[in-house]
């Protein structure tokens, strides 16, 4: 590579090429992140200009905050169920929509539609479905499950959240799985067919092992998104009934901005970050071990 002569011109080039992104990245992500660590040791209330250092008091509070841990366990349950369902549905869709079916690109495009719409709007649309449409069907047909609004019952509201999540993300993950399926080498699939392998056997012993990289990406993406769910939670259930569906992200928001407990809120956010980072790194580490070469 031809490189510029002179310290000044090299510095100018560096500033031009990397300056804006690195400056924005540093001031928007790194500085607030570090400052956030500092905030967890103070008792700032969001209004006063001064705040005192309180040491590990906020962390001690977080450890004892039963509501935080309740919402964390709830989130964990929600994440496990929805990540599993999203990926199973997405993989099945991708599997059927890459077998050379007529109109498969039309189907793919259709299943992707929910991802065009943000969580806020989706939450409102489904709120209408759960509290009006299904109730009206229930009353007219006498099907008991739909008789009352799902969003008024803690357990059903939780499953309502899962249904909408699966509906929202399955199409996105499907697209990634389709990309993975297209990378499965055709020649070894043909060789397997000639050797008389059934479709199921090919799926189990060849396609699934070769698809591990796609599974890693999809599980990683769905973990990240479901752990941090906020918009959908806000507009579908508002955390209700009686805070029974308040996910951890919403809890942190309320602690900081509504209860004006910024120190505790930020401490909870950091604890959450450490837990999520730990879980995702473990996931990537263990699934990398499953990868095979084609």
């Amino acid at each position: 590579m031809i490189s510029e002569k002179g310290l000044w011109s090299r510095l100018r080039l560096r500033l031009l090429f990397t300056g804006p992104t690195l400056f924005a990245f540093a001031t928007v992500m790194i500085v607030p992140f570090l400052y956030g660590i500092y905030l967890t040791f103070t008792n700032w209330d969001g209004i006063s200009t001064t705040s005192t250092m309180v040491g590990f008091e906020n962390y001690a509070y977080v450890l004892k905050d039963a509501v935080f841990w309740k919402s964390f366990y709830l989130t964990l349950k929600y994440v496990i169920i929805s990540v599993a369902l999203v990926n199973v549905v997405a993989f099945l869709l991708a599997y059927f929509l890459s077998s050379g079916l007529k109109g498969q690109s039309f189907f793919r495009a259709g299943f992707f539609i929910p991802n065009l719409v943000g969580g806020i709007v989706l939450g409102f649309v489904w709120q209408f479905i759960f509290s009006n449409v299904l109730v009206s069907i229930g009353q007219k047909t006498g099907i008991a499950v739909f008789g009352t609004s799902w969003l008024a019952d803690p357990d059903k509201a939780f499953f309502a959240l899962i249904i909408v999540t699966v509906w929202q993300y399955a199409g996105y993950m499907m697209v990634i799985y389709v990309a993975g399926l297209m990378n499965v080498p055709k020649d070894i699939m043909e060789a397997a067919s000639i050797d008389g392998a059934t479709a199921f056997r090919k799926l189990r012993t060849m396609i699934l092992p070769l698809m591990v990289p796609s599974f890693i990406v999809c599980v990683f993406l769905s973990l990240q998104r479901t752990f941090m769910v906020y918009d959908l939670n806000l507009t579908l259930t508002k955390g209700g009934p009686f805070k029974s569906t308040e996910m951890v992200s919403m809890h942190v928001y309320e602690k900081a901005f509504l209860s004006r407990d910024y120190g505790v809120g930020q401490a909870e956010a950091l604890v959450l970050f450490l837990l999520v980072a730990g879980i995702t790194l473990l996931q990537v580490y263990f699934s990398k071990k499953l990868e095979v070469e084609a």
Partner: protein
Amino acid sequence: MKRLKASMEWSKFIVLLVGLVAFVFPFILLIVNSFKENKAITASPLSLPGSFNLANYESAFTKMNYVSAFSNTVIITVLSVLLISVLAAMTAHFFVRNQSKFNQYTFFLMVAAMIIPFQAIMIPLVKVYGNLHLLDNKWSLIYMYLGFGSPLAVFIYHGFVKSIPAELEEAAMIDGCTRTQTFFRIVFPVLAPTSVTIAILNVLWIWNDFLLPSLVLTSSEQRTLPLSTFYFYGTYTVDYGPLMAGLLLTILPILIVYLFAQKFIIQGVMQGSIK
């Protein structure tokens, strides 16, 4: 055997078709109900509208302050996406071609930072930018999108810049191009498919984002579409007709874009997932 196979194909097709209809059913419901009056919606949400009534749309259009929310969203999305695509490509290019320890560490830091969830940053972010009086301003928001969006973009570009032969750039420089000219005339055009991918991923995210704008934009004139939908819904909860119309108006722009660019969008998402 052949007939069995054909009928299998058909049943698969029909199962998928039923699945697809169930999948897009919420949107059909939205369209159908957006033309009905409140009473008709609550009485029978599944029935077709009696007449083609646009009153709900008029009401939602004015109450949501649609024109202002729409133009805010367009300005924010377009500028953020342009900045992210061009600037991140420049950074990734510089990182690949000048492989110093410092650049490697900076790149690693950016990739590692992708794991930080927004929730771990939002509180200090609001405090820092609030103290600097930079909140309630779309330019700050665009700047923040650059900060949050550049790590992934730099990461994706980094992978693709590596596949461009350095000889191509050297030839341009021997012909008298400066590094900047080489980037804009040779490298950036070659990266166009990657730029499309990055633009698509970022448009989907920024257009629909709620939490960040809700923290940054406080006055009602600054609101984006998701924000104005949220406040509109909060204020007029019983008015189902205008609500359905409002939700549809929010979805419509991106649905129209999808209708025309559907192939690219699906491909962009595919590309974005393969490192």
